[in-house]
């Protein structure tokens, strides 16, 4: 390995550049949020985060996130299974469509739902006569959240399943195992870490989504405000302590997610090493 060694100076210069860059761009904003959140003291902080509307916004965020993670897990598994275990026409097109939502600006994601379910949309008449409201209501928020995180889980599963191939499933099928048995006993053990990893990424994005949700929410305080929208509201009302206090909830969740991500990655790697 010694031919890969760089001279000491270059190595440490590059390492220092990395630390400075990441400290300024990533850590400083994080530290700043926590510092500002506590500027009004512990009392002020507790009061801000236990505010009725803050709690309602947190609850809505959790609900939307659970929906998005649930649906995308269900979808991600069947999409990954379908795309990796079978050969069929239009496979490439299907996978392109699945990946499409991440390349679309969140604002545009919001827009297309407004166009579909809004007053001028083709479905409005039907939905309205049944008393279903989607945009400027919770279903819209949930839909937008699902959209922006749509490929997050399938994208983690597909490479793992592709690498694993179809031999094991074919062997199980030849022995007469049925779909769910094959999935549970043969496929699932391969993908469990990738799945968990995808769920973590999906959760992170879902709870933090701002643009798409912002378009669809109608900004009804206590009804359709998710945590990021509530933060915006406070911020625009110049309640900075409140905004940063609410932000700190999301910061803590983000840090937990980063730690989970590292742990899952380590465990998954270990498992793969053992299986080799």
């Amino acid at each position: 390995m010694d031919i890969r060694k760089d001279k000491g100076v270059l190595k440490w210069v590059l390492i220092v550049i990395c630390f400075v860059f990441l400290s300024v761009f990533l850590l400083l904003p994080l530290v700043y949020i926590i510092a500002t959140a506590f500027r009004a003291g512990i009392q002020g902080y507790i009061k801000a985060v236990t505010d009725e509307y803050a709690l309602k916004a947190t609850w809505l965020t959790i609900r939307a996130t659970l929906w998005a993670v649930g649906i995308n897990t269900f979808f991600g598994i069947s999409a990954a299974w379908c795309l990796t275990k079978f050969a069929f026409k239009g496979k490439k097109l299907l996978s392109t469509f699945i990946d499409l939502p991440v390349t679309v600006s969140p604002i545009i994601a919001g827009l297309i739902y407004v166009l579909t379910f809004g007053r001028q949309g083709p479905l409005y008449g039907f939905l309205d006569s049944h008393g279903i409201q989607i945009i400027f209501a919770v279903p819209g928020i949930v839909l937008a959240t699902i959209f922006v995180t749509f490929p997050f889980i399938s994208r983690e599963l597909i490479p793992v399943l592709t690498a694993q191939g179809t031999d094991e499933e074919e062997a199980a099928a030849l022995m007469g195992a049925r779909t769910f048995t094959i999935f549970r006993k043969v496929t699932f053990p391969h993908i469990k870490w990738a799945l968990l990893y995808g769920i973590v990424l999906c959760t992170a994005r879902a709870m933090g989504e701002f643009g798409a949700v912002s378009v669809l929410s109608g900004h009804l305080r206590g009804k359709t405000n998710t945590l990021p929208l509530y933060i915006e509201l406070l911020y625009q009302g110049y309640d900075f302590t409140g905004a940063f206090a609410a932000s700190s909830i999301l910061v803590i969740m983000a840090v937990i997610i980063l730690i989970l991500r590292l742990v899952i990655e380590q465990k998954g790697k270990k498992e793969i090493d053992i299986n080799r």
Partner: protein
Amino acid sequence: MKRKSIIPGFGLSFGITVTVLSIIVLIPLCSLVVFTSQLSFSEFIYTVTRPRILSGYYVSISTAFIASLVNVVMGLILAWVLVRYNFPGKKFLDGIIELPFALPTAVAGISLTHLTTTNGWVGKIFYDLFGIKIAYTRLGITIALIFIGIPFVVRSVQPVLEKIDLQYEEAAFILGADRRTTFWKVIFPEILPSLISGFTLAFARSIGEYGSVVFIAGNTPYETEIAPLLIMSELQEFDYAAATSIALVMLAIAFVILSVNAFIQSMVSKRVSGLA
């Protein structure tokens, strides 16, 4: 559609995949197409060529481009440091790179804004020493987009760099190449495709970014108004036609960027795998 596989569950997984995909992605996208077809062409051209709109595109694209370039350089250095060096704090560095994925964009946005106003921790230094304003300028937008784009380049280069066979460097070494020549002639061509890929992903994401930018931008027309914000303001005035027109152009831009990348990647894989 021919099915040769003996693995069961094709119909089920295909059905679920297509159904969910249709509800979440395809139908809403179709309504965008349907709505667009109702627009008159002249109206469309008029809308998207309004100076304020054009300036919005310009601001979005130019700041996204510069931010992505910065991220290419920093992403390469970060990936290199993480793959090739051992040093205390490496795990930590590797972990926080993902922060922009985990931290909600709006939270990042308000924090970066407060840090860089002329009274902020960082902004004050720059204003007092150099007379440079960061928040509420295009520089501020660029900073926010750098934050958003950091993980893209690192995560696309890192695995490729890890996989480079030591033999290439040894071969170059025995033929007399020094570290610098080996890097530029042997290693760099190997990671260039992933660097381009990381750049495109960061660039496409940055153009559509809303949450982190909207606070720091200040949203002065012709100066710091980004394209997604323009869609948002049209929506708030219920001018769906204008919003859709602007969105269509943005989708087209994203499509072109991603197609260019797909083309480059397919050229590269042809060369490397020999499937010419």
